[in-house]
C-alpha cells in the first residue's frame, strides 16, 4: 500500500486493496459514509443537497452544507463543501476519483474551488488552482 499526500495542493491519494465497487459503496451509502466521515443525509443523486454533521467545536458549528455535483458510478463523485453562512462562508469542491489497478484501486481526493461561482471547478481541466498552489509554495519559500 502506498500513501502519498501533497497537502499544498490538497490532493490525497492512496492505493487500496479493495475493488472500486466496494470503495464506491463506502463513499455513497449513508450509513457506511457515517462510519468513516460524519453523520449525513447523502444520496448519490446530482443536485441533492445534504449535510455532514460533526460535533460543534470552537469557530465551527459542526455543519458542512453540500450539494452533489457529479456521480459516475465506481469512477467519480463530486460534491461542494460549504462551511459557515452561505453568504459569507467558504465554498469548496470535493472530488473523489477511483481508478482500478492490478491490486485494487487508486483512490484520489481533491479539495479545491473557492467560491460558489466556481463550482465548475470539479471539471478540473483549465482551472488554475493546481498551478496557483505550486506558485504559492514557491512564494512561501521566498518568504522564509
Amino acid at each position, binding site marked *: 500500500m502506498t500513501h502519498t499526500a501533497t497537502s499544498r495542493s490538497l490532493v490525497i491519494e492512496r492505493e487500496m486493496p479493495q475493488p472500486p465497487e*466496494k470503495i464506491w459503496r463506502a463513499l455513497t451509502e449513508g450509513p457506511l459514509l457515517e462510519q468513516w466521515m460524519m453523520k449525513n443525509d447523502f444520496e448519490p443523486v446530482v443536485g441533492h443537497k445534504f449535510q455532514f454533521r460533526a460535533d460543534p467545536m470552537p469557530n465551527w458549528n459542526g455543519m458542512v452544507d453540500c450539494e452533489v455535483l457529479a456521480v459516475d458510478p465506481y469512477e467519480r463523485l463530486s460534491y461542494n463543501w460549504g462551511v459557515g453562512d452561505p453568504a459569507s462562508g*467558504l465554498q469548496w469542491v470535493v472530488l473523489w476519483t477511483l481508478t482500478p489497478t492490478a491490486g485494487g484501486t487508486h483512490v484520489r481526493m481533491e479539495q479545491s474551488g473557492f*467560491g460558489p461561482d466556481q463550482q465548475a471547478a470539479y471539471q478540473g481541466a483549465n482551472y488554475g488552482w493546481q498551478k496557483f*498552489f505550486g506558485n504559492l509554495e514557491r512564494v512561501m519559500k521566498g518568504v522564509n
Partner: protein
Amino acid sequence: MPTLADRVFKALADPTRRSIFEGLTRDGEQTVHALTRRAGISQPAVSKHLTVLKRARLVRHRRAGRETHYRAQPDSLAPMADWLNHYGAFWRDRFDQLESLLKRMEK
C-alpha cells in the same frame, strides 16, 4: 464578520485577481497603469480588484506623484497555508478511517 482567512480566499478565488497577485509576487512593485496594460481590462476594473486584494492584506500601495504603486505581501498567505495544513490532516485521518471500514466490510 468575515475573517482575514475568508478575505484571502475570496480575494484569490477570482482568476483575474490571482493573476494580478501572481504578477506582483513574480515581478515586484508595479504601477496601476502597468497592471492595467498587462491585465487587458479597464483601469477602474483593475482598481476594484486591487481594493479587494488590499482588504485581504495581500497587497500594499504607496503613492508617488500621480502614480500609485502596488506590491505583494506574500506573508499574508499564511491563513491559506494554515488551511492547507488543517484540511490535509483532516483528510488523511478520514482516509485511515475509510481503510479500516473497508477491512471490516470484508468480514
